[in-house]
């Protein structure tokens, strides 16, 4: 009877001519083998390398196609995230601003209950002096103020009075000999004679670059001689630092300028160091007489006591806790921000919990996650029936209703949130209606805003489309025949839904939940407006630290933790539900 059907598809089971061609080629290739028996191409190259070459070329072409996107993603997405992660541990500012002090502090033992030795205060003077001139000391003050309240004003006030310490040495020297006022004399003295010590200059340029986060290079028109560097080490260092600053920052010529006060203080220290007088007496370089005169009149210089000088500026310098903080936060990288983010603090003995009335972040993280879960849950409850209706309506009607679902996207987020304010507030629409209906007394209007309820309601509304869309697209692919099949097999409506339809819609719920949860965990505008105090998220604190307190390190650490929490939840979701079970469309 097969001839009844005059037309119809004919299957082609016989080998096609192309098959034969392929076989012939394969046979041909097998003919070419090299000495070790590997396949080679017609011109003698190994088949494998030849193939790799061809593939490489293809890959390179493909890479070129995606290169713009790849670069875009790297620059706009990966790089900012990496930089954020880095900021949360980065702490170079301490060592860059106070390099000598932090070095010297390493060997100080805070547990002895004694202040750091005089040498530390001397280093602090020179570090802080340069930093204050470069206006960098307040940044460090702000940074350390996060860890120990009051450092900021300590640095600011000390910065203003460092000149006084230096002048105590400058004035007697200048009184002794007017020549000390001359920049040219200083330049001659410090340049010395013979071999120059370029290492000192390079060191100071590096230090300057680190301090000001710049990258300047070049000849500063000055280099101390090796002889003078050995004779007056501190002076050489201070003078070179000043010279670098003069050239790079003020753009002046070294020989024409008078050095700043710190150089005089350094000279005094060098002159007072043991054995200096003998070495100076033996020196015969330029301006040796001037130097020898100063060395011979040591009694005019006040005794070096920088500890007392700093204590005179602010007695806080005598607080061992301050020095502990400096020591704890000297390393270039710190976990301090992360500890802060989880309500811990760093002490010389390790970690300890912050005072109870300062603990806030753990609570906020918990609340953020809890409320995000509640919001996700209510989005599922509200979104599922809507998505179901949309998926089961004729396309035309569904599209129309879809526009209604998407409508909120077309209005500003602020407008929507403010609308909820109008709806929910005590003199608002909902309360008015309830009072008018007599369900609620005028005096006992419901508080539905500036609390968690307000945040949950407004955010559920705002994020609902993100739940409905993936659900809808998944439900659209579930054919009605599955439900029919289930019913024909004897399932009641409920069983058919629960055992057959629902499991198939889970990928949509999963995708929607991940979207909504991740979006809500990082939301801050809506909670800020309708959340009051109990309805705000961790992101509100991040925003606060980014734009108000400017504690970017802490903001970065909080952001990083949030990021990790999301990854962990994502991982948990993968383990429990399976990430294959997520369909966005």
């Amino acid at each position: 009877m097969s001839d009844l059907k005059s037309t119809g598809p004919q299957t082609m089971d016989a080998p096609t001519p192309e098959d034969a061609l392929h076989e012939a080629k394969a046979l041909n290739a097998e003919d070419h083998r090299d000495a070790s028996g590997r396949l080679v191409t017609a011109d003698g190259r190994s088949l494998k390398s030849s193939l790799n070459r061809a593939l490489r070329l293809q890959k390179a072409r493909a890479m070129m196609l995606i290169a713009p996107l790849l670069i875009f993603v790297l620059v706009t997405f990966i790089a900012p995230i990496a930089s954020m992660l880095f900021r949360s541990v980065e702490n170079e500012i301490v060592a860059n601003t106070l390099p000598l002090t932090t070095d010297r502090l390493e060997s100080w033992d805070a547990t002895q209950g004694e202040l750091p030795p005089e040498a530390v205060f001397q280093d602090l003077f020179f570090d802080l002096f340069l930093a204050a001139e470069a206006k960098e000391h307040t940044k460090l003050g702000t940074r350390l103020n996060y860890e120990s309240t009051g450092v900021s004003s300590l640095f600011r006030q000390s910065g203003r009075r460092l000149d006084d310490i230096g002048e105590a040495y400058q004035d007697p020297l200048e009184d002794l000999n007017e020549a000390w006022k001359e920049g040219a004399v200083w330049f001659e003295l410090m340049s010395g004679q013979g071999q120059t010590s370029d290492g000192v200059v390079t060191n100071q340029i590096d230090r300057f670059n680190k301090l000001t986060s710049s990258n300047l290079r070049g000849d500063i028109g000055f280099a101390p001689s090796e002889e003078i560097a050995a004779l007056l080490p501190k002076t050489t260092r201070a003078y070179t630092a000043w010279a670098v600053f003069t050239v790079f920052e003020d753009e002046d010529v070294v020989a024409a300028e008078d050095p700043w006060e710190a150089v005089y203080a350094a000279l005094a220290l060098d002159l007072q160091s043991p054995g200096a007088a003998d070495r100076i007496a033996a020196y015969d370089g330029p301006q040796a007489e001037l130097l020898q005169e100063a060395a011979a009149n040591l009694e005019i210089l006040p005794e070096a006591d920088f500890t007392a000088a700093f204590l005179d500026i602010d007695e806080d310098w005598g607080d061992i806790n301050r020095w502990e903080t400096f020591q704890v936060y000297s390393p270039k990288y710190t976990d301090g921000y992360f500890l802060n983010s989880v309500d811990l603090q760093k002490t010389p003995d390790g970690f300890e919990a912050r005072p109870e009335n300062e603990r806030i972040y753990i609570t906020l993280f918990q609340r953020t996650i809890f409320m995000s879960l509640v919001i996700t849950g209510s989005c599922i409850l509200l979104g599922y029936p809507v998505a179901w209706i949309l998926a089961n309506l004729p396309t035309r009607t569904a599209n129309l209703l879809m526009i209604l679902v998407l409508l909120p996207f077309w209005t500003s987020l602020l407008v929507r949130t403010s609308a909820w304010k109008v709806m929910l507030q005590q003199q608002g629409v909902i309360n008015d209606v309830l009072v008018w209906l007599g369900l609620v007394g005028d005096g006992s209007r419901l508080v539905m805003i500036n609390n968690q309820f307000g945040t949950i309601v407004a955010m559920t509304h705002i994020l609902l489309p993100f739940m409905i869309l993936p659900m809808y697209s998944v439900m659209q692919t579930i054919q009605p025949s599955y439900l029919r099949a289930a019913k024909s097999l004897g399932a009641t409506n409920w069983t058919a839904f629960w055992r057959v339809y629902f499991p198939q819609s889970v990928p949509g719920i999963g995708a929607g939940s991940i979207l909504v949860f991740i979006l809500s965990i990082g939301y801050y505008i809506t909670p800020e407006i309708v959340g009051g105090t109990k309805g705000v998220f961790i992101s509100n604190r991040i925003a606060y630290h980014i734009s108000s307190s400017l504690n970017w390190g802490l903001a970065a650490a909080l952001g990083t933790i949030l990021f990790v929490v999301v990854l962990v939840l994502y991982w948990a979701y993968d383990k429990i539900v399976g990430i294959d079970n997520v369909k966005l469309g």
Partner: protein
Amino acid sequence: MKRTKLLLATSVLTAVGGISFAASHSEMEACEDCANDMTLVSWGGAYQASQTKAYAEPYMEMFPEVSVAWDESSAEAVAKLRAMNEAGNVTWDLVDVVASDAIRLCDEGLAMEIDPDEDLAAAPDGTSAEDDFGDLLVSDCFIPQIVYSTTFGYRTDLVPDGVEPPSDICSVFDLETYPGKRSLEKRPINNMEWALLCDGVAKEDVYDVLETDEGQEQALAKLDTIKDQVVWWSAGADTPQLLADGEVFMGSTYNGRLFSVIEEQDQPVAMMWDAQVFDLDGWIIPEGLPEDRLNRVKHFVKFATDTQRLADQAKYISYGPARESSAPLVGQHAELGIEMGPHMPTDPANATNTFLYNYEWWADYRDDIDAKFQAWLAQ
């Protein structure tokens, strides 16, 4: 020892009316080697409008080649300037900030230091700019414009029968006499001081007490007594809106906002000037501007902060001009035609009990107290 610099705003604007200067200003010289585009950063709203009308428009009338773009980013100015500085591309020319931000920017080297006598115009009677601005030059980088205050307004129709309208800051904490919600700013500044004042701490001791843990506890404990009745605001427009809606009985905000609710929108709201906290607002010039843009900005600033311009601004908004010499020139509201003097925070009738806000203290303690305050809010 902490040297505290108190804002002595009361020294300005103590008298309104009286002597009037010949308000003519000499024609300004043209600006040489100047860029023609300027980006000014301000707060938006009525305040920015007053700046446009009093400073920018007259300036552009004189120099039509200049065009001015406004950016309403003053609230995030410090963060944005930091970011611009890191990126090495400062796009702003003149930034309106509150005094504490100016101090911060100056300390970080993000704002340019100015020489008041050279960069700013002298008063018409020859008083140097430095003397004319006086104590309000709180930072080397700060060019003051206005004195404003944070104070309370309340709904007159919600005052309970047979009770005097509130006139004392402590009525904020008196829920029995004045029931109803209050709106307070969602930050510790001002709130902590008011709480201590109403908990028996003398005005001059407030910061000494607040410096201690016990003092902070004390302030928070006082705030705890009204915590349930507080709506916390973060935008300046919140309290006026809450008052207009009848959502709160009383609330703190900037005096100019309350002026607008009372006089311009005619709402049943009244001011309560007691323990108002003065603050300053002014310009800073970002560090690192190219030569031509810097010339233009300096040229503009000299004009925009002269005696007449500051007095003109008060026609549009009820903030006190920062120059002593501008005070006598303050006149009537540009549209309502009412005398602005009595609405100024610095008017003697309003300034019988003012509170002096200590910037430096807050600069040091803000992070610390903020952590406690936020933790307290969250509890």
